[in-house]
């Protein structure tokens, strides 16, 4: 690895870790994993931002132009983090050693080996193969490859505008409206690699997968889930075949949306349960970045903001809001039109027989019964999700008391319910049904909410005595309420 590549990886990691540390200076259970997880993902996005801001005129040397600013940011937020950290309790206590039976050891060995093995295969797959999946080269790498090989930025415009521009003034393509954040990140790594070397510009997908798992493990621990169940749920999340596929066949934006949406949910939960304002800021940061990654991110941002905002209201206020929303819905049905401003998507027009999304086009509204087969097969039959969608309803039914006791879980469940409702509306009631019937989009959109769903399952099992569940005679199982915390 060249020095430039090493710098291109270490600097964003340092910037991301320092940024996360500003939001979360405390060293509670799982903080190392959470810091590295959030830090690595933030770092790559910060590198993208620095490249977009400071390397437009000379993309071939993006690292040279953007790195000093990223280093400056690292120094500033690092200092801020250190300042915030002062006065907080130092060091970390260790969890009481647990008597671990052989079955736990066997399971942990299988889980870690499975994750490590798929991680290694994914890494090799990325490092060997030219960009493979369709949208990776047709949509997501078009802007980055163009700008990098051209040596500078040029706008991507509509076909009509492209035809009136001079050839050296603008580009176009089927994905000209797509956000460019991931493209700028690819330019950062391409400039460090010294050329458009596809395995090296796709390598962030591996770091993202690791970061996603680490962030979830760390935050689950901070939310009170003991080490063993946290490991179980990390294994369940990390072993989902489609998630692994998106890492190994790098280049799609969906894994980024899944990671950022999941990370926003985790920080939001921590704010709901621990009233830590920094976590709220973190949740907002993650959620706001969604439309910058993919157009669908605007929908997730809207739903997330809607449910989070709803959760902020006092009980009476919520009734008013529900009443107003119902009145608006009835009014829009009476008028025959509903207009929603969506960040990144424009003014979305919904009329009885059509949804008009400016950057996507018009989708006719009609029942598509045939797509139901595609939805069911995707969730319950194909290998995409292992047994997740069989397991989820059983766990949620079994742990229903947790919902009654924890408002945070009710809110998260509401968010997921609304999200699933949106996906069902999209795939069963609009022209997007063809993407469910052909399996070309349904699983990728479902993937966006899967880490958040696993978080709901994990949090629902927070007070389960796993040691007792697996073996009634086991000792020393950590419970949510057990102090003290542990960094791992």
């Amino acid at each position: 690895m060249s020095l430039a590549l090493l710098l291109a990886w270490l600097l964003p990691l340092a910037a991301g870790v320092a940024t996360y540390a500003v939001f979360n200076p405390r060293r509670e259970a799982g903080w190392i994993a959470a810091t590295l997880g959030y830090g690595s993902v933030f770092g790559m996005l910060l590198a993208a931002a620095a490249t977009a801001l400071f390397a437009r005129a000379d993309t071939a040397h993006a690292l040279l132009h953007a790195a000093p600013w990223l280093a400056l940011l690292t120094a500033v937020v690092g200092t801020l983090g250190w300042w915030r950290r002062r006065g907080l309790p130092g060091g970390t206590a260790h969890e009481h050693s647990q008597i671990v039976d052989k079955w736990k050891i066997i399971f942990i060995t299988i889980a870690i080996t499975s994750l490590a093995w798929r991680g290694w295969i994914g890494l090799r797959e990325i490092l060997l193969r030219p960009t493979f999946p369709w949208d990776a080269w047709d949509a997501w790498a078009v802007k980055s490859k163009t700008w990098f090989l051209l040596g500078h930025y040029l706008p991507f415009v509509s076909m009509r505008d492209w035809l009136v521009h001079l050839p050296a003034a603008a580009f176009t393509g089927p994905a000209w409206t797509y956000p460019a954040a991931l493209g700028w990140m690819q330019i950062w790594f391409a400039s460090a690699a010294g050329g458009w070397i596809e395995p090296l510009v796709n390598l962030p997908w591996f770091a993202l997968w690791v970061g996603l798992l680490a962030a979830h493990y760390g935050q689950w621990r901070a939310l009170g889930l003991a080490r063993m169940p946290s490991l179980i749920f990390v294994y369940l999340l990390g072993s989902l075949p489609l998630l692994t596929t998106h890492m190994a066949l790098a280049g799609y934006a969906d894994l980024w949306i899944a990671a950022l949406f999941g990370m926003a949910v985790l920080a939001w939960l921590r704010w709901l349960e621990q009233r830590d304002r920094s976590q709220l800021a973190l949740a907002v940061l993650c959620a706001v970045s969604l439309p910058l990654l993919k157009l669908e991110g605007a929908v997730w941002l809207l739903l997330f903001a809607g449910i989070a905002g709803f959760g902020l209201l006092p009980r009476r206020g919520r009734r008013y809001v529900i009443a107003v929303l119902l009145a608006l819905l009835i009014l829009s049905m009476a008028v025959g039109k509903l207009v929603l401003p969506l960040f990144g998507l424009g003014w979305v027009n919904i009329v009885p027989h059509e949804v008009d999304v400016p950057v996507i086009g018009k989708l006719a509204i009609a029942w598509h019964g045939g797509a139901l087969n595609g939805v069911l097969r995707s969730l319950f039959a194909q290998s995409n999700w292992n047994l997740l969608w069989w397991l989820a309803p059983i766990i949620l039914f079994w742990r229903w008391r947790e919902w009654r006791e924890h408002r945070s879980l009710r809110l998260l469940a509401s968010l997921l319910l609304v999200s699933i409702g949106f996906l069902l509306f999209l795939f069963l009631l609009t022209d997007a049904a063809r993407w469910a019937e052909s399996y070309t989009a349904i699983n990728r959109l479902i993937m966006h909410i899967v880490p958040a769903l696993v978080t709901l399952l994990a949090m629902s099992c927070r007070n389960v005595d796993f040691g007792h569940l697996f073996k009634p005679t086991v000792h020393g199982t950590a419970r949510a309420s057990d102090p003290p915390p542990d960094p791992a």
Partner: protein
Amino acid sequence: MMRRVIRDRVICVLAVAAIWTLVLGFAADVRWSAPFAPHQRMHMNASAFHVVMGAGVEDDTALRIGAIGDDGNALQSIALDSVRAEDFTVLRYRFDGFPRTLELSLVFRRADAPDDVQVVTVPWPGKGWRSLNMSHVPGWHGQITELGFAENATPQVVPESVAFRPFRFDGAELWSPSWRGSFAALYTSWFGYTPWALLSISALGPQREVAQAPPPVPFVALAGILSLLAVALILHWSRAQMLGGFAIAFLGLWVALDLRWLDDLHAKHELTEDVYADKSWDERARLLPDQDIAQAAEQVRVFVSTLTVPHHLLVASDEKYTFLRLIYLLLPLNAAPLEQAAGMRVPPRDTLFVLYRDTQWRYDEKRSALLGDNRAYPVEPIFESGEMHIYGFRGTRR
């Protein structure tokens, strides 16, 4: 008391075994009245097959295939003495050293349609015998007069130039309906390897191989739930025991499915290692699965480099994949799909039309115009090589 415990446990084991046999039997599409082992087996030594495409030599009862035909395919076939398809529901085949870079297809011909050759992709052979449930193969009915195997580069993932390596074809068998045959086909389907495909990023299930058993997930889940209920009823489990059993069973099934998928992932990756390992990036960048499109892009690039002014390139091809891929490979040349310019005014001063493997647009020499999609552009041909045609507006500076 002790005897009762032993009796309950024996009943438990029998109940769970019965549930799994029943559920897996449905998955395998077993004919419940069929015998355990097939009554009829028709064995065909590979040496009895005729090499139709490519080249091969007999090796005792096997056939060593040493070369592929000019069109990138190899084919071995055998004439059959009018075999009734309904009598044989399982096909078994065995190859040795079959490269991961090749895809295997079954080829057969029926007496009622002698000119109609049926070709279906079948699971990759791997080591040992592989089995295929023929009752779901489209066209497998009536009298079969010829049967064969064809090999070609695995589509979408393998560059044709590195696809072929010699292998040995050992033989094939046709089996009458039996439990053994159905479960062998289920095993091949569930534990066989499926190469990466363009659809893999969107769904892991639909595949090119035909006559596959339904995926394992719903059957494993169903069998797991039924087994748990049976055990809980027989052993009078408490709620806590039920939850413990549920947790252990689902975790165990999850791990089992995970290991099965990991094995498939590993096999998928071995193909990637086969093609790309130990090569520099420059070499790997040239080893694209669509080398023909990459060569076409290179032709355009070389031609455009001779022009004095920059141009818009409007690219067309019959297949969407082809023109989009061509546009990506042409970057940073300023290219876009011609189909998107429908109904728009194309500026004559700086536009070139790049047609590759395209039949929707036609150059009319008499009118000196490019015709298609209810449009006509006054152009002249300026470059032609094989399936690549480039046109420019008449009389403009280039």
